[in-house]
């Protein structure tokens, strides 16, 4: 009888390892809580500041999204501040979509070469090169854009050389490694037996690539492109250096223009907290934030659709 009680007592006493486990759970849970708090805090802060333009400064949301004049310090003839964000929204979308359109074929082509045509060379040469490109700071890309792309654009198309076209060229190089390495992952996830089945049926390697491998990898490839677009949409510094930073509706691809991010980086230091100028910039930041949420949502939807297949 006594031994039973002793055994129970012994078993109920937590060992050092069991205590450590509880401690580990506490630590990882608090890390999670901190991250959640930071994310919620950022979204809340940006949202409250961004909405202030419409609540405290009484700017019409529709005007904000559709008006073409951005000059928050000045009021127009009707006494309304000029906070039309359309040029920047258009600029951001244009530059994002164009750079994705240019980068996608190169990225998928490179990924196909790395994974299907020459895996050895791909692993030895292209993989490190791609990783290197990811690691180059965006200011370096911007600087190269400023000293090479802008003069080249100027020489070929005339004008100042600053504009959507230069921005697209720089962003194309910047998002290429991201889209490429994610495309490689997507191709790598296609089971080897798909390829073997196709080859054994007499399909050529090229037929196998475009009829079987690329089809099977489509959700992954789409995710790669959307990731690239999210990166392009959010990129600030390099774009700001080559786009010209004129908050005007771009008449052509070689006219100076602006994106949401470039207006933010150039303007945020020159405004006073709480002023309309400042709040208007926060509204732009809110648009950016919402758009990255949309990109995330698209990626998740594609991922879910891919799993269902």
């Amino acid at each position, binding site marked *: 009888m006594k031994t039973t009680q002793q055994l129970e007592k012994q078993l109920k006493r937590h060992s050092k390892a069991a205590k450590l486990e509880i401690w580990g759970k506490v630590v990882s849970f608090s890390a999670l809580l901190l991250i959640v708090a930071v994310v919620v805090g950022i979204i809340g802060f940006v949202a409250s500041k961004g909405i202030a333009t419409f609540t405290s400064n009484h700017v019409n949301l529709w005007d904000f999204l559709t008006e073409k004049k951005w000059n928050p310090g000045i009021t127009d003839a009707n006494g309304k501040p000029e906070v039309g964000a359309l040029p920047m929204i258009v600029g951001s979308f244009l530059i994002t979509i164009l750079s994705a359109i240019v980068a996608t074929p190169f990225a998928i082509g490179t990924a196909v070469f790395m994974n299907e045509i020459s895996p050895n060379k791909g692993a030895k040469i292209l993989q490190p090169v791609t990783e290197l490109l990811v690691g180059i700071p965006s200011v370096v890309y911007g600087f190269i854009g400023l000293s090479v792309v802008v003069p080249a654009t100027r020489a070929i198309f005339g004008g100042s050389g600053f504009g959507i076209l230069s921005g697209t060229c720089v962003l194309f190089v910047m998002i290429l490694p991201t889209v490429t390495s994610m495309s490689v992952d997507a191709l790598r996830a296609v*089971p080897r*037996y*798909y390829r*073997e*089945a*196709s*080859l*054994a*049926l*007499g*399909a*050529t390697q090229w*037929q196998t690539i475009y*009829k*079987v491998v690329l*089809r*099977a990898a489509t959700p992954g490839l789409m995710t790669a492109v959307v990731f690239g677009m999210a990166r392009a949409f959010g990129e600030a510094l390099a774009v700001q250096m080559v786009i010209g930073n004129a908050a005007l509706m771009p008449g052509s691809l070689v006219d100076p223009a602006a994106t949401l991010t470039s207006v933010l980086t150039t303007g945020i230091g020159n405004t006073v907290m709480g002023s309309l100028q400042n709040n208007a910039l926060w509204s732009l930041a809110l648009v950016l934030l919402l758009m990255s949420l949309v990109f995330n949502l698209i990626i998740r939807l594609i991922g879910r659709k891919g799993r269902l*297949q």
Partner: protein
Amino acid sequence: MFVSNDVSTTGTMQERHIVQPRDAQHPIVLSTEELHVFYGKKEAIYEGDLQFARNQITALIGPSGSGKSTYLRSLNRMNDRIATVTGRIMYRGVDINQPDIDVYKMRRRVGMVFQRPNPFAKSIYDNIAFALRLRGTTDKHELDEIVETSLKQAALWNQVKDDLNKSALALSGGQAQRLCIARAIAVKPDILLLDEPASALDPVSTSQLEDTLLELKKQYTIIIVTHNMQQAGRISEYTAFFNQGRVLEYDTTSHIFTNPQVQITSDYVSGNFG
């Protein structure tokens, strides 16, 4: 006195015993001559020359890693990018191991079914029509007809004839494997290579698959790698026993199973090793 420890000299058992098929009704359609397979510098097959008789089933048996799958995959050059294959693979008098052979055309004559059922994530119909469309067959009637006859030959038609547009991924393992066979025979190959086609299947599906193979042998020459010796015994006319990269014994299946001439074969087929 000098004592040799060579196994072939101890007792009456031989070290190798190779009897190539000689049957006027079933001439040789495929054979290998001096075939060697290397993975990098490692030699995986160094004695493996076999001849295969038309419209017969030849089973390749042997323990894991004996080289039987490597040998089979070399026959339609599926090892091209993986291994180095030297020697000649004679298909109806033509060496198909020459570098200037169009392997894609060749593989339409020497088809292959894999261990794991591997239908594409397409409909049942599109799986079978895949290779035909690549070949340029676009006529709907012709495709319909080939899909139907292929599925019938693979004994799958009655189960799927109303679901041809459903995804092939919804099929059971046995059905999927028979779809893969139907897909392989849709291009009307001459020779069908099967790499352990039943190893992922349950006994009932396995038995149905064996019936299908016995039926298919009337039109195709079949070479099958199998781990299952009973299966080799049930369906094949000839059996080759592989061990450590060599064919140790090749003869009619009944000889291999009732009167093996090599000690290791005897041990293997009686279940003493492997």
